[in-house]
């Protein structure tokens, strides 16, 4: 039963990644694209944790943690670059 639930959740997050990609492609303005990238990062964290449950190992939590931190920093850096024209003033 867990396998079917895992497949369902992974399918939901896969379709969600495709919808984010659509928003990156057509999004009218930089704020929408940054938002879609941030959502993609969060969906990838969820997919990594799902894969860790499926494999039964706890190795993937470190990868998910790293992606969470780097994704947050990249989103803030992109917004700062658009707001001030520079990342580190």
């Amino acid at each position, binding site marked *: 039963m867990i396998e079917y639930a*895992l497949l369902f959740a*992974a399918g939901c997050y896969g379709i969600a990644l495709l919808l984010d990609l659509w928003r990156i492609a057509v999004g009218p303005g930089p*704020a929408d694209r940054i938002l*879609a990238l941030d*959502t993609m990062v969060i969906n990838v964290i969820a997919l990594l944790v799902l894969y860790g449950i499926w494999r039964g190992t*706890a190795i993937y939590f470190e990868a998910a943690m790293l992606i969470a931190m780097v994704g947050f920093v990249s989103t803030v850096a992109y917004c700062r670059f658009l707001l001030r024209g520079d990342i580190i003033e």
Partner: protein
Amino acid sequence: MNLFAEVLISIALVISGLFGFVGSYGLIKLKNSLQRLHAPTKATTLGVGGVLIASMIFFYATTGYISVHELLISLFLFLTAPITANFIAKTYMAYNLREDELPENESGHGWAIYDDPPNTSSEPLD
């Protein structure tokens, strides 16, 4: 693993998958940019929280130990989601709104993206 843990993990996984899908569906469904900011910052973060709860129950049911990695990830995500939403809203305001379109600010200073912060243009702080 007993049946109760399996049912609990499956329910958490299905609900979190639905939350993640709804978050990204709202990203393409809603009309305005600031409305679109609403969907992924709440629903997708809750979906990831559901996946992490399922993972905690799974590893407790299989190994017998409580793993705390998931709590770290969820704490970090729940801390940083409002900050990224604030930055994205500021970027949208700076690119799409003029200063006279915004309502008056009660604090005496202007909006943060148009005015300098207080106590920087005059003499420095002691």
